[in-house]
């Protein structure tokens, strides 16, 4: 970029706009994380349902042991990316806060589950997924995450009144609408 070129006010505005655009947060860059968590949770919930209620396997819950492995992959990936990132932005900090808060909530719930039982915990998972997706969608103005977040909260609320078997089905639905579908709808050019 030259520094001496003669230019006018309209070009100044155009330059400011283009510079702001280059630093805009693009959720598309995080699409893999939505796919990873979305599909992994969906598959685990489906397997849990199949093993527990179709095949009557008593230890169906073991499928969820895949989640801590995924969490390690996630944090290693995020840590590496953060270390090599040449810029830090306000939106980046907002995303860290929203999703970091959700992870803390989930971790606390997993500990609490030994005391209150899993039936009481799954609906809260859906509420947490929903609020994090809703907050992200609002912050970056991505309507599919907003709608998905709201739908996940509705699933969570309904799940409080359902037996565990149906809670699993509602979890699959919540994950489908709040993670998987929005991730498929993220476009490289727009988001």
């Amino acid at each position, binding site marked *: *970029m*030259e*520094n*001496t*070129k003669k*230019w006018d*006010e*309209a070009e*100044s*505005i155009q*330059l*400011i706009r283009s*510079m*702001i655009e*280059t*630093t*805009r947060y693009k959720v598309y860059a995080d699409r893999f994380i939505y796919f990873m968590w979305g599909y992994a949770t969906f598959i685990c919930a489906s397997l849990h349902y199949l093993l527990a209620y179709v095949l009557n396997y008593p230890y169906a819950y073991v499928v969820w042991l895949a989640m801590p492995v995924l969490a390690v992959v996630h944090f290693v990936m995020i840590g590496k990316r953060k270390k090599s990132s*040449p*810029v*830090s*932005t*306000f939106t*980046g*900090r907002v995303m860290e806060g929203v999703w970091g808060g959700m992870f803390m909530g989930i971790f606390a719930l997993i500990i609490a589950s030994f005391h209150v039982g899993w039936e009481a915990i799954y609906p809260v998972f859906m509420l947490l997924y929903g609020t994090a997706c809703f907050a992200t969608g609002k912050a970056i103005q991505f309507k599919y995450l907003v709608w998905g977040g709201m739908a996940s909260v509705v699933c969570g609320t309904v799940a409080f009144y359902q037996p565990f078997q149906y809670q699993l089905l509602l979890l699959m639905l919540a994950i489908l609408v709040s993670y998987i579908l929005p991730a498929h709808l993220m476009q490289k050019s727009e988001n």
Partner: protein
Amino acid sequence: MFKDLDPLLHSQLRLAIVSLMMNVDEAEFNFIKKKTGATSGNLSVQLTKLKDAGYIAVEKSFRDNFPLTTCKITLKGKDAFEEYVKALVGYIQVKK
């Protein structure tokens, strides 16, 4: 009466740098270089001018044994940018 456009900001590269910095907490030298398309030498000169005017803060450190320059906009820089944009809008409205 029109406000004069800040001569320090009414320069293509310096305005690009400050516009970038307005939207981030902090940015590395190479990031600014990539986004503005400037050469290292020119960018260094313009960053020094902005730093001397108190518009940006420059921090030099090391990462993995390599020198790392990180820039951050100051409150004075933010105020100057906002004033510059206000003045620009004034000029554009009169031209219409």
